[in-house]
């Protein structure tokens, strides 16, 4: 009788322990994933702010022959939310060669980056930089507003992993 009780208790205990380990492992994965998403979101916020409120460093980086290590930060604004068309044109022109550098200067080198400047309705695309995420990735999408050549525009910033 004692050994039957013992066997039953041992079986139950083993089952409960296995379940607990698997459950916490799964929960830890979800928490980790949530923390990673939160970090990505925070990085996206700061990248968006840098783009929308600063001219970059050097302030006339768009006039340099090459966008390389001499550019320590990237911005597309003359003043707060006032977008500079020349900076945008240069950013688009450098898309194939400086994509990694621009991401690094915006602090999102660990992620993919896509920036689209459209009219407020999103119907007309003015400028597009970076790439677009696939359907299977975790994406942070930010909508910001700015002025381009005296007209309000929408700036959509996507950061993903």
């Amino acid at each position, binding site marked *: 009788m004692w050994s039957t009780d013992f066997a039953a208790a041992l079986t139950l205990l083993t089952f409960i322990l296995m379940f607990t380990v698997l459950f916490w492992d799964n929960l830890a994965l979800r928490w980790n994933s949530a923390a990673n998403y939160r970090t990505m979101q*925070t990085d996206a916020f700061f990248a968006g702010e840098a783009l929308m409120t600063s001219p970059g460093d050097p302030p006339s980086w768009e006039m340099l022959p090459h966008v390389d290590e001499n550019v320590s930060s990237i911005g597309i604004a003359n003043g*707060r*939310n006032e977008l500079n068309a020349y900076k945008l044109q240069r950013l688009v022109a450098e898309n194939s060669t400086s994509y990694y550098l621009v991401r690094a200067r915006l602090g999102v080198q660990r992620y993919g980056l896509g920036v689209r400047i459209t009219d407020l309705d999103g119907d007309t695309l003015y400028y597009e930089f970076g790439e677009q995420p696939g359907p299977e990735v975790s994406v942070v999408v930010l909508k910001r507003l700015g002025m381009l050549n005296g007209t309000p525009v929408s700036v959509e910033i996507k950061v993903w992993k």
Partner: protein
Amino acid sequence: MKAFLITLDAFVAIILLFSAAFLMYSSSFQPYAPRGVYLKQFTNDMVTVMEKNGDLGSAIAGNTSGMHYMMGFTPQLVCMQVSITDSAGNRSVTVAKDECGEYGRELQVIGRSLVYSGQLYTVKAEAWYKKEQVT
């Protein structure tokens, strides 16, 4: 009898354990994100664009259509209200986004000054997430 009672105890404990685990696992689990940072950034964007586009000045002059138009481009879950007060403290204009009720989650408030026709005004913008949005 003793063995039966122990087994019943264990059975009840296992049921409780499974129930608790199931509730924890199936509950909506969304990461907390510093959404207030984005809300503040977007509110600043909105007021800046309204100012540079001349919508705030037009509103002081009596035409609030530009402000209403811009309010339509806030994200769906964001509510916003912009008030303009003159230097005497009299509220000149208040424009709020349609279909927004009382204050919801993560209220953000920004203020800035504006000079229009030689008069000093204060612009106060309040933004919040709609209540039905759960983080």
